[in-house]
């Protein structure tokens, strides 16, 4: 039962989707729509699982007090803060100070709980109690402070100015810079790897050089531009097509193995 039922499910749903492909009728599309919806919904529950894993690993690292244990604190704090921003709406025109106070109280309360649950037994109760106290203070703030409120049913948090700021000035620059690292890595990779070790490496090198030299000043510029267009249109197209066909067959074969239960590695083959 433990091992057989999942395999049967895979076979049933796999075959269903294969048949679905050949049936244009709208009922078949409905079935497909539902399966895809379910996967999305399962994904949300899984996300909770993922966040739990992130918290667990971070807490374990903090607890171990090994090298770099401080950084997971930053992760946890920013995680909690961003979540808080996403679920709260700030009243228009209100001062942000009480909002920040509430977050600070909340974060300290969580920190106390963390210490209480994970730390040494010595002053555990003390910490738990102060955590609880702070949590009560926070709840009171949440109820009586009119400058902000929790919003779980309307997406107002997405337009909360702090949420937007964190997105614009923290996520975006970090993301863009991480991406921009590629400019450096593409340089060092070409320095390290493009060496005429053998025929194949030489071909790789020459193709890259032709394409990179295509707009350098010099009498070869225009000629190389034409050549690189040809390289992209002819040999490149040919090889890409071969790879695409190969991938297509690989995917079909893998999917078939999965549906037929030949390949069970994804479920921990026993």
């Amino acid at each position, binding site marked *: 039962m433990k091992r057989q039922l999942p395999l049967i499910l895979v076979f049933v749903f796999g075959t269903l989707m294969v048949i679905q492909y050949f049936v244009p009728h709208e009922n078949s599309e409905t079935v497909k729509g539902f399966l895809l919806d379910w996967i999305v919904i399962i994904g949300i529950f899984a996300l909770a699982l993922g966040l739990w894993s992130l918290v667990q690993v971070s807490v374990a690292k903090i607890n171990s007090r090994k090298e770099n244990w401080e950084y997971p604190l930053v992760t946890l704090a920013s995680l909690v803060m961003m979540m808080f921003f996403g679920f709260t709406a700030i009243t228009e025109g209100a001062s942000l100070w009480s909002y920040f106070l509430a977050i600070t109280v909340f974060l300290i309360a969580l920190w106390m709980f963390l210490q209480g649950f994970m730390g040494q037994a010595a002053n555990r109760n003390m910490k738990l109690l102060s955590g609880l106290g702070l949590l009560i203070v926070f709840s009171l703030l949440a109820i009586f402070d009119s400058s902000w409120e929790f919003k779980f049913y309307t997406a107002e948090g997405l337009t909360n100015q702090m949420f937007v700021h964190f997105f614009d000035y923290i996520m975006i620059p970090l993301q863009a810079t991480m991406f921009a690292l590629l*400019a*450096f890595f*593409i*340089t*060092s990779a*070409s*320095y*390290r790897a*493009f*060496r*005429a*070790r053998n025929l194949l490496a030489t071909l790789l*090198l020459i193709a*890259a*050089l032709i394409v*990179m*030299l*295509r*707009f*350098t*000043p*010099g*009498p070869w*510029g*225009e000629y190389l*531009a*034409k050549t*690189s*267009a040809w390289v*992209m*249109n002819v040999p490149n197209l040919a090889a890409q097509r071969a790879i695409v066909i190969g991938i297509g067959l690989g995917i079909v074969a893998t999917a078939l193995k999965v549906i037929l239960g030949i390949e069970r590695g994804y479920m921990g083959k026993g």
Partner: protein
Amino acid sequence: MNFFSKLMQLDRRWVYLLLVIVCLSAYYADFTVPTIVENETKAIYDFIEALEPGEIIFVAVDYDPSSQAELHPMTYALVEHAFRKDLKVIFTALSQNGPGMVDQALRDLTDSLKLPKTYNGIFYEGKEIVNGVDYTFLGYKPYYAIVITAMGQDYRILFPSDYYGTPLDSIPMMKRVHNYDDISLLVDISSGSITDAWISYGQGKFDFPLALGLTGVMTAQYYPFLQSKQIMGLMGGLLGAAQYEHLADNPGLAKDGMRVQLPAHLLIILFIIIGNVGYLVTRYRERKI
């Protein structure tokens, strides 16, 4: 450890540092990128250069903000050239977010054209370009294939009035201007499949001179149309834009971009060459021993 094997083990941080230095000095150093002009770009420039004042060119702006970095420089360079030559320009934007692009370009160009400037040794007085006299912006309509076909009969069919709501018949420059027969050149600056429609539905049916400005990635696949003479010119990516700016003696966004791109590419090529020299020399020496 000799020089070459040291070179082979060069710490990558030197590579990074050099890239930073090259980039920053490209920003501040006073130099111009020597540009080799390809015939495809020159063809467009020469064509516009040969037009008489008062002739009309049609610029189809078919891209949106995502490819603006590559294509805006082309629009700027080409349209400014046309305005300085006292040509008149009709714009359309057949991609959904295109009108914003035209708007922005027109605003910037109106400002820069107010200044007097010298290009290729010829002095041009600054001038005010006027909507309706110097240019007309027809705007956006969905289903580009139909729009392109219908404009072969008359612009008024789908654009009875321009983007700003003025009836075409009351726009001075559109008097006696009906369809592709009345324009001297059509330039499509595009980041997508609209180009194919301009070639097959537009040029293929109504046979007007067509030039293309495309993103770098697209360029390669449109060379065949040059050979079959369906298009008279082609600008590819930032590079094509830089060539046009060079021809028009009007360095702008593209040349700025190329000022960093070119040294960076050269640096990479230099590293590849150094790496290979080092590799070949050490291998040669190892063999000798």
